[in-house]
């Protein structure tokens, strides 16, 4: 996916991809967000998540590392830990051609729901999305982003492994040491 270069509005580290979605919605952004994980291992794996927006409502999702688009790309965008977020503004006309790529499209509330898991953000997105877009049903048989996430075994195992390491490290700090040795 070749996105025309936009005007940078904001650049910061975020702990949750939901921030990208809520920032875009609050600004009624027409443009795109780029998310890049800050974790060294994930960073080394490469790739950026890109979400495009029309007046704050998500339109396309694409990941440069996996070269996947649409709902599956949302699973690639989901990272455990902080990401570098950049928000870019673009004239709607510059996005029009890109937005014809139906295979990269996502339902307006899908990122807020499946990627962010934020019920109030889902509701706010639904309220502001054009009726025509809300009527877009997911294609039958289309992979749900959560399924795509669960199919990425190495990513899920990395989350588990890191949690185990954290639990064990904190056991000492928190005085749970005896429990770990049981």
């Amino acid at each position, binding site marked *: 996916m070749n996105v025309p270069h936009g005007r940078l509005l904001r650049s910061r580290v975020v702990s*949750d991809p939901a921030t990208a979605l809520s920032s875009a919605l609050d600004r009624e952004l027409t443009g795109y967000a780029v998310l890049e994980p800050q974790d060294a291992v994930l960073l080394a794996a490469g790739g950026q998540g890109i979400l495009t927006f029309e007046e704050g409502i998500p339109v396309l999702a694409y990941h440069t590392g996996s070269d996947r688009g649409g709902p599956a790309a*949302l*699973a690639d965008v*989901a990272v*455990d830990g902080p990401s570098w977020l950049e928000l870019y503004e673009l004239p709607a006309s510059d996005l029009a051609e890109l937005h014809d790529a139906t295979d990269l499209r996502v339902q307006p509330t899908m990122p807020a*729901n*499946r*990627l*962010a*898991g*934020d*019920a109030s953000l889902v509701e706010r997105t639904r309220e502001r999305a054009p009726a025509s877009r809300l009527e877009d049903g997911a294609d039958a048989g289309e992979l*749900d*982003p*959560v*399924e795509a*996430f*669960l*199919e990425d*075994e190495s990513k*899920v*195992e990395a*989350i*588990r492994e890191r*949690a*185990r390491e*954290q*639990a*064990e490290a*904190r*056991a000492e*700090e*928190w*005085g*749970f040491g*005896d*429990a*770990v040795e*049981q």
Partner: protein
Amino acid sequence: MVEAFAVASGKGGTGKTTSTLALGMALANDHDVTVIDADTGMANLLFHAGLADVETTLHDVLVEGGAPVSDAVYDRFGMQVVPCGTSLSGFSACDPAQLREVVATLAADTDVILLDSAATLASRSAVLPVVLADRVVVVLEPTIPALSDGLKVQEYATSYGTGVAGQVFNKVRDPEAVDRIAEKAGRYFEGPTLATVPDSDRAREARRAGEPLLAHAPDCAAAEAFREAADRLTVRDGGPEAVADRFRSAVVPDPP
């Protein structure tokens, strides 16, 4: 017979407290159940159980020289309910590590203890219920962060020698997708999917009415799903002494 379950999620908003009270009421048909709000920093069980105005809560018990546990136990909806207060000063004053003594005391006189746990793994007091419980019930929503955080809860639990009773998929709007998600999640989660609970306006109404879902709308589909989940939780016989010992054991020293 005593078994302590931590109802946990790692992420807020998954419906943990609704689930805790629903499982508690369903289990109370066959067992003597005690429900404890172990989320001492962000307590909300009192609002779900019509106990917002009570005088004594867990906060008053978890202080040096505080009230006896029995003062914070309320018979409601066929269960013993131990609410926690919501004031910041109450939280600051209390010593969450004393929770183990509270649970050990209550274990002498009940069959099942349900600990409504914090929606975070970021602090010692938030993780403590997961450490103290025999098994965790992980409450999930079909979203990436909820599953990711649910897995973290499971890894913390198993790292600390706590078993996994299973998962509850809550607030489900698309049952077919969730069946596929639950099947794939089963590769990583221990224990069975206990139930798929449909998203429910009745659950929201119940919360506003200050009643557990199974008291407010016992015939709704969500209530039925929670009863199924409770049926799948075979309560194990730990023996009250064993649980009390476990809770009193020196796993958690006093804070510095």
